[in-house]
């Protein structure tokens, strides 16, 4: 049919135009991160408490030197759907941090051990202090980093991602950055002073020195102490800090789906019943069942 032919023509034209355009644009973009296996993927995904605790350990021992987590409170560590610390453990962790409070009766700010209601104290008093200490670079706060980073899957993959529920481009990107350092950089690449080569970073020149190496953080649960494992654990932990209600969301989502499917099914059958006489008009039904035409 003519209509079909013109549609096919239009689609082919649009597709060839966009493929041509994509080739032009993708010449110097960074490599796409590999898709890792995450426990929180899919409709029944939940955080792995052991992994979140290991990720927290990596944050505390490595990342927290430079990166803040200002939206996270110590109390969150014992929230359901989180790393699964008990409340006394969260209190202990909080007291291990020094928090600025005040002003006191003398009008002075003072330091005190953290309480469970406090948020994680920033590593630097302000952005300028961070830049001064780190040679000009400003490490981003990591509270919502796992949702603030990602990569474009591109056409047509982004369509499949909607069906496979792929929402882990943030943690995949964080993991990729942490394992993507190459020293020395590939031949022919010149880096600005103080920058490292990272094959997943846009532009490849990253200011953050390679933060993780094998054996750097001690794991007591038998998990291999490798850079790759650290990177996965911190990425999972950061997904939790960015999306602390993910477990609750997916659990409620399933209940909502069961409810909506039953409701919609009942509405469908009610609709069929109500419309029965309109869809099967007596004029047609009264005719002989053999379907003989009256004319």
């Amino acid at each position, binding site marked *: 049919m003519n209509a079909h032919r013109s549609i096919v023509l239009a689609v082919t034209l649009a597709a060839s135009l966009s493929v041509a355009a994509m080739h032009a644009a993708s010449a110097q973009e960074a490599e796409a991160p590999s898709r890792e296996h995450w426990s929180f993927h899919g409709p029944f995904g939940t955080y792995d408490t052991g992994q979140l605790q290991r990720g927290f350990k990596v944050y505390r021992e490595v990342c927290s030197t430079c990166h803040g987590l200002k939206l996270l409170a110590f109390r969150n560590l014992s929230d359901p759907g989180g790393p699964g610390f008990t409340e006394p453990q969260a209190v202990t962790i909080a007291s291990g941090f020094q928090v600025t409070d005040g002003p006191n009766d003398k009008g002075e700010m003072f330091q005190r051990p953290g309480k469970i209601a406090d948020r994680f104290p920033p590593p630097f008093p302000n952005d300028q202090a961070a830049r001064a200490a780190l040679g000009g670079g400003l490490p981003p706060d990591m509270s919502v980093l796992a949702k603030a980073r990602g990569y474009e899957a591109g056409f047509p993959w982004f369509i499949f991602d909607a069906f496979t529920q792929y929402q882990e481009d943030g943690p995949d990107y964080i993991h990729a950055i942490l394992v993507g350092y190459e020293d020395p950089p590939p031949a022919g690449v010149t880096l600005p002073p103080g920058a490292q080569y990272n094959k997943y970073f846009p532009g490849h020149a990253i200011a953050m020195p390679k933060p993780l190496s094998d054996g750097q953080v001690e794991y007591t649960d038998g998990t291999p102490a490798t850079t790759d494992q650290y990177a996965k654990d911190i990425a999972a932990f950061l997904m939790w800090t960015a999306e602390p209600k993910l477990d609750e969301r997916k659990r409620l989502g399933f209940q909502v789906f069961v409810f909506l499917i039953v409701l919609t099914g009942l509405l469908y059958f009610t*609709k069929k019943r109500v419309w029965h006489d309109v869809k099967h*008009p007596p004029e047609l039904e009264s005719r002989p069942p053999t379907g003989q035409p009256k004319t």
Partner: protein
Amino acid sequence: MSANSIYKPQNPLMQWMERRLPIAGLVYSSFIVYPTPRNLNYWWTFGGILSFMLGAQIVTGIVLAMHYTPHVDLAFNSVESIMRDVNYGWLLRYLHANGASFFFVAVYAHIMRGMYYGSYKDPREVLWILGVILFLLMVVTGFMGYVLPWGQMSFWAATVITNLFSAIPGVGDPIVTWLWGGYAVGNPTLNRFYSLHYLLPFVIAGVVVLHIWALHMVGQNNPTGVEPKAEKDTVAFTPYATIKDAFFIGVFCLFLAWFVFYIPNYLGHSDNYIPANPGQTPTHIVPEWYYLPFYAILRAIPSKLLGVIALLSSIVLLAFLPWLDTSRVRSANYRPLYRQFLIVFFLVVIGLGYLGSQPPEGGYVIAARILTAYYFVFLLIILPLLGLFETTKPLPNSISESVLREGLPAGASAPPPSGAKV
């Protein structure tokens, strides 16, 4: 409306009320006995879906407003506090953000249906124009809502879109300053966007009342485009349309729930989780997906002023469809050529949407220019000419006749035309 639409309450209290404020009678005649064509397909349920979504957006929005702080230093963190500390705040926010997207899904389906079945033609011009006004109001409201979380995309979208007004010759810059409430996008801008984002949904609700009023004056169009002629061409709004709408609202909610509960950030941009930073421009500034076709049109034109004019006219031209389309036949089912050109037009809009999400360079710009050209050629040249030269298929005599013909078993011939008897 017909004689059976008069409401005669039996209950003495309702009789007392009806003599003073006939609101029950209004509901009775508008939503119970109101006659709807019996051959409406599921594309006609999007009106009900849109009303439902407007209600859902207003309810979630009002609760979100109780927890949101419209200040440049606090907005981002107040949204994050909704996500973390407010009971079911994550649900409210994801419902509202994805709800906005699905509101646009529904409105685009609604507009496509109107264009396919010629629902804008005499006597439904005012109904259609009210619809275009509603769409414009939705665009403005959605844009202002996107600015409120004050992330990087919020800030830069506000900057780019308000700057479009600077293209107006002579008074452009003073207008932009006036819109901003300052010399850059800042706290006054955020405050007024918040105020207007709260106001406009109620303006939309008001225009929706006019839209429904106009609809009930002229009645619904239907897939044949032939007006109902006899009582058997129609069915009562309740229970027929209500149950059908309710069922499809359920189906629509399943789609919405998939996004809200499983991929809530799929339709958003990750950069909007970075707090707004006026000193750092994102690599690519991209609007929400539902504006992408218009964004592609804007960028396809090299001149800023002409680009803005093209952007505006791409929406405003829709209001003139009743006069641009010269054909007397409504439904594309009976207009073979129009049907083809229209389907290509829809594909072109989707293509423009894709191009709007890509950087404005190389092949993308050329493709966007070709598709933009088709957009306007279709509306301004093809549509008026088609009505003059197109050979249309014969229309059925009545809705019942077309329904009966479809309902016949294969091989049986059609019953004698019943329209003649009426």
